[in-house]
């Protein structure tokens, strides 16, 4: 329990710092900009209460926004991500099947599920994020391409992270 808390706090700090100091400067023209900080929200324990999940997602989003000078945009996207995460988990997992404090990371969960999880949630997050950033349907195809390319970029980085910390767990 304490270990899980510690891990998550560390993840929060590390991912936030990496996002605002490293990934902010990486991008393919304005088309693909990665947002791997969402990994923090993705890796929160499965059995986390909804309210706490929303609070953490909101705090994470606002923290990133503070550095991006786009107050609210990332927060909204993270809240949307939290909601989609709840839905995704509800649909795909019987909660009692796994222990409540389990971190849904590759190694404890099958890769196929993990990949789908990351892909769907990242797509959700990026859709909200870029739509709010554009805030108009004008040149929608441009926004759409940004969403798709950024999503691919983010998913690749998240999978690389996961590979880095991959550890086959004995269940």
């Amino acid at each position, binding site marked *: 329990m304490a270990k899980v808390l510690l891990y998550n706090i560390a993840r929060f700090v590390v991912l936030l710092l990496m996002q605002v100091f490293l990934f902010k400067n990486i991008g393919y023209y304005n088309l693909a900009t990665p947002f791997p900080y969402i990994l923090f929200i993705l890796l929160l324990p499965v059995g986390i209460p909804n309210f706490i999940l929303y609070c953490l997602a909101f705090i994470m989003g606002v923290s990133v926004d503070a550095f991006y000078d*786009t*107050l*609210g945009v990332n927060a909204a996207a993270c*809240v949307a991500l939290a*909601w989609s995460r709840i839905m995704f988990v*509800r649909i795909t997992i019987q909660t009692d099947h796994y222990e409540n404090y389990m971190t849904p990371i590759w190694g404890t969960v099958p890769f196929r599920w993990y990949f789908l999880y990351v892909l769907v949630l990242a797509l959700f997050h990026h859709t909200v994020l870029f739509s*709010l950033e554009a*805030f*108009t349907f004008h040149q929608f195809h441009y926004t759409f391409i940004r969403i798709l390319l950024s999503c691919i970029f983010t998913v690749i980085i998240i999978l690389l992270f996961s590979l880095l910390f991959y550890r086959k767990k004995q269940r």
Partner: protein
Amino acid sequence: MKNLWLIFTKYNAFFLFIVFFGLAFYLVVRNNTFQRALVVNSSNHLVGSAYEKINAWKSYLYLSEENASLAEENAALREQLQRFTMPDTMIQGVVNDTVHHVQYQYIVAKVTNNSIHQQNNYITLDKGRKHGIERGMGVISSSGIVGIVLHVSEHFCTVQSLLHSETRISAALEDSQAFGSLVWGDNYDPRIGTLKDIPNHVKVREGELIYTSGFSLFPPGILAGKVVQTGISGGDSFLDIKIELSTQFHNLQQVYVVKNVLAAEKAALESQNDDNG
């Protein structure tokens, strides 16, 4: 209350999402100038388009006044045009005047077939397309109005007589210049017509003459008939006036087909009225 709370707890993910997302959205709009400008603009746009819609509806309410003023303008224009037309309406043929336009040309025609006893009467004339007759021209005789050209063949044309249930001709009272529609009405007497749509307040005396108003196909000032009975109320605010037609339909021989040279121009002008309406 308990059920409400149950719903809240059961779907807490959704309600919490709404709350947090609303908060974030509020932050977005409040703190980012671009989004704020857009929100304000779009609301302005909403308000603007709402006003536009309302005005579009309101304009219908003032349509009659608008039409009246346009009709007045038309009348003034017509009066100006009238200065350039030939004063003698009985002359036949064309006067080639290169300085001034001739508004009305007259084509002499002979009646080859006539009926007065049907509900819808038609007249056949011995002039057709070859002689320059077109559909929609007015037909007059020396004694008054005859009708409107309906179909044209190469050498003949048929005329929808004034004695037809669907013929309406704009005519005006001599004294008051109030104008209405001259129709045959629902009687079967070829000597009697009805002048409709004259407002109630207009004073009409028996024996008053009726002339064409010039608003329709016919030149203004052609005798149409005289009032034999006034004050037959057709509705609440209009008089139906009984008219003795001046045209002798039963022995109609020689007629004139009126070619309004400026008819196309007039139609174009009046179609603009429709656009405005």
